[in-house]
């Protein structure tokens, strides 16, 4: 279980990294925290000829306040978010989600951008940032562009990234006053990848209501009709039958156990979003 030989460069400027990646699009891979790519290299599931380490690009570690949203650098680690190093108007959600990602050693190195680019359906950020309506700032050889996270993830381990393009930052809308969120993850033991995630954000001030089922076979699924109903009639309106119907419509074809787990994750998230039940 040793990686095949590769060349390694660690540029300090994003433009240089993009130039290197674009110069050998089939052979080069960007390295962020390495918590997924590292094992894949060792298992020889990934055998890039060139590894472009983004770790020395300081700009990617910055977190900026941009009025109605935060711009979180792609290389901000899970641990940084867990430790609330930056003040975020997210109701504490990112810190809470980060706390349950893998275990601390992984969180110390793993990054928010790396996780999203890897696009493992069971990873937390994919679901948490989908329910928060995050957008991504991408940078590539043809310049910069923004994309909604929902459009970014095309399926399991598949994204809209173009050759040579990397995630530069996560654009996180600020939650309004009175916003509530809930995030319920089912996994076999702490630190394991999730079997099911239910996530809810109700932000009446911004007229936003989102319910998302995560840890599916592909991208997280949005249950928008159910969210609209909950926004107008309250969480109690999502009775089990309504919720099951909404889940079946959004995610058809689940096996009975998977369907049960996703329904329970959503139901428990909704239970917790009732006033006073935030977690």
């Amino acid at each position: 279980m040793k990686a095949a030989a590769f060349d390694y460069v660690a540029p300090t400027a994003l433009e240089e990294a993009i130039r290197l990646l674009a110069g050998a699009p089939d052979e080069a891979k960007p390295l962020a925290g390495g918590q997924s790519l590292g094992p894949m290299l060792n298992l020889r599931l990934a055998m890039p000829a060139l590894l472009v380490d983004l770790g020395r690009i300081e700009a990617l570690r910055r977190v900026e306040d941009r009025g109605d949203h935060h711009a979180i650098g792609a290389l901000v680690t899970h641990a940084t978010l867990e430790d609330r190093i930056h003040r975020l108007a997210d109701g504490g959600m990112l810190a809470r989600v980060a706390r349950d990602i893998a275990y601390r050693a992984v969180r110390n190195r793993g990054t928010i951008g790396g996780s999203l680019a890897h696009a493992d359906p069971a990873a937390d950020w994919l679901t948490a940032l989908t329910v928060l309506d995050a957008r991504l700032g991408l940078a590539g050889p043809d310049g910069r562009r923004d994309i909604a996270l929902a459009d970014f993830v095309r399926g399991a381990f598949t994204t809209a990234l173009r050759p040579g393009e990397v995630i530069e930052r996560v654009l996180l809308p600020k939650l309004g006053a009175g916003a509530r969120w809930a995030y319920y993850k089912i996994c076999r033991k702490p630190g394991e990848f999730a079997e099911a995630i239910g996530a809810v954000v109700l932000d009446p001030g911004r007229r936003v209501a989102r319910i998302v089922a995560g840890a599916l076979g592909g991208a997280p699924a949005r249950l928008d009709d159910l969210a609209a109903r909950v926004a107008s009639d309250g969480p109690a309106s999502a009775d089990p039958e309504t919720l099951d119907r909404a889940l079946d419509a959004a995610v058809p074809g689940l096996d009975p156990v998977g369907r049960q787990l996703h329904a329970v994750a959503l139901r428990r998230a909704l239970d917790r979003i009732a006033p006073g039940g935030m977690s």
Partner: protein
Amino acid sequence: MSGTASTGTGIGARLERLEDARFLHGKGSYVSDIAMPGLMDVAFLRSPLPHARIDRIAAPEGAEAVVFRNEDLTGVRPIQALSGLPGFKPSDFPVLARGKVCFAGQPVAMCLARSRAAAEDLVQAVTLDLTELPPVTDMLAARQPGAPLVHEAWGDNLFLTTNVAGDIETVSSTAPIVVTREYRMSRQCMSPLEGKGVLAYWDDRHDQLVVVTSTQVPHMIRTGLAECLGIEQGRLRVIAPDVGGGFGYKCILQPEEVCVAWLALTRRHPVRWIEDRREHLVAGANTRQHHYRVTAYADTEGRLLGLDAEVTVDVGAFSVWPFTACLEAAQAGGNLPGPYVVPIYRCKTFSVATNKPPFSPYRGVARPGVCFAIELTIDAIARAVGREPAELRRLNLVPASAMPYTTITGKHYDSGDYPASLALALEKIDLPGIRARQKQPEPDGRLIGLGLATYTEQSAHGTKVFASWGIPLVPGFEQATVRVTPDGGLEVRVGTQSIGQGLETTLAQIASQILTLPTGVIKVIHGDTALTPFSTGAYASRSIVMAGGAVSRSSAVLATRLARIGAHLLQCDPAEARLADGRVYGPAGDVSLKEIAQVWYLRPEQLPEDVDTGGLEATVGYKPTVDTGAFSYATHAAKVAVDPETGMVEILDYVVVEDCGTMVNPMIVEGQTYGGAAQGIGTALYEEQPYDAAGQPLASTLADYVLPGATEVPGIRLFHLETPSPYTEHGIKGVGEGGAIAPPGALINAINDALSGLGVEIGETPASPRRILAAILARGTGTTAPVAAA
């Protein structure tokens, strides 16, 4: 002659482990820590398919001299582990595949390079052409006529069937209560922290091949390696350095050991292979997989009248040396009645070949399976007669008054009070409290359950037992050498192996007890065939009984000789000399062992004329007076909460009441039990190597093979009983395996107790959330098919 406890380091002392200083400071020395000039690495090309004909193995151009196939290994014999049991079908286990591959992960070619990474590059460059053959990966399907054959010449897939033909008909037609169940245990990997590793080099000075290997049984490996390589044992030295866990995985001769040894022997170049985790999970998925069909007959009170069982063991493709393909089934058939009085017993066992890695005995050896089967059956009977499961155990356990007790299968239980362990466990877990709590719904909707399991752990079973199992290498007298150093210290040499169980401490404690020296001046030496007397090694919970007994006996011989010289120096009658506090006391004065040692080694002119010329070194062999085994036992009681919506299980409380006879070091007994119980929790709830329909193992990293960690293993509450064995030195019984035996039975009984209101029963390990949920969802639909892994 036996010493007082004045050293504070004798038998029974709760001593911190002497070996821990180096382990805790990261200074242990394992195979992969050894550096040598020019050391090269081996990586194995392993079969990607479970069953296939080999059409071609071709080294990349220019690398022909560093890629080795079966036909390149001149002089190497296949591993042959023949069982002496009648009807056994032998399997030659080629150290590199020959003609065909029989399991995914089987070594096919050996690639040699300057580094492991470069060796893996070579592996990727080798051309391997295979023609797929139909695999057989389900043990029950493998028993059916027409199943694909692992060994075509056999005509079927049965290594062996055995039959205990009890007269079950005498109860089957009349018993008022009949309970029939099927149970399954999944295939596991033993997952020692340190994987397997082997390093070999040629030593010109001694004209010897030196094989440094992570093993529990260095002397046996010497014997097995010499046979496979065709060299005299005098030209082979086996060293086991620090070994980071064995659990049975390291008590067999592995093909990689033979390959690496052959390479060093023929190339005269130091070379090593260090197993990685993926290799372990794929090629080392070799244990625990049993299937049971059990019918129990009982009276209306729940008293057992008879037991009728069919046990199938998924042995994999080959027979392992020296424990063979049939030890597991022999153990299962002999131990299924467990600690209970079973008047009539019929049992058929099937050791079935499949396209999986060869089955090896794992901590507990078959008993986690039989304990699981009998304990779930006891609970099923309790439900059938409407009684408290604890009551049923009280009714059926072998009572203390019956000791020593010989079971229906001939197991001779030497001593103990099984009902007392049950009673104490019930008190500690608070049976009435749990029953009262179960009457009220939990605020979080979870369901509370209590589960019990009582087992016996045969330890240090000796010559006759192993001979009856048909094992090619049978243990006899265990020897230890003790030697006083010229400055009055003590060296203890044993051929068994410390693999983490603290023998460097406990054996020193036994010597300390006899010779009244503090353990601080006692050094236990093991792990090298050149430095220690022969031993079959560390397995079957035998080391503390066997090596401990031998250390005791040889120390006693030295004590006599020391007293005699001491008496001469004190000018008193030897009968008046007494050993205490590291000194020999006479009626008027005393002399230290250090002074006596100096006289023997450096001032022999002061010795008595008739001194024992054996001097201050003794080797004595030991075997218990009755060597059918000293039986430890325990009751485990588990309190769990099951979330019926997710299938998640939380262990709320876990109580162990164990009795391993005289405890040499209670803290080490506790450590053994905690560690074993953690592995048992893994069996019960987490660990599984699933295979898909094509015979591919699905867990190749620890992300897929779920091990219990710090958050899954609860604080285990451990209580001791202490019934010395009447047959062993100091009344010691072995305890290394026991912790791992009961958790599957106790935990799944607890889960079933929690789910009893839903009418759901789990009969399969691991009881994963997915299995539990599937069983709950299948309620009323009549489907109870086993659930594929998550």
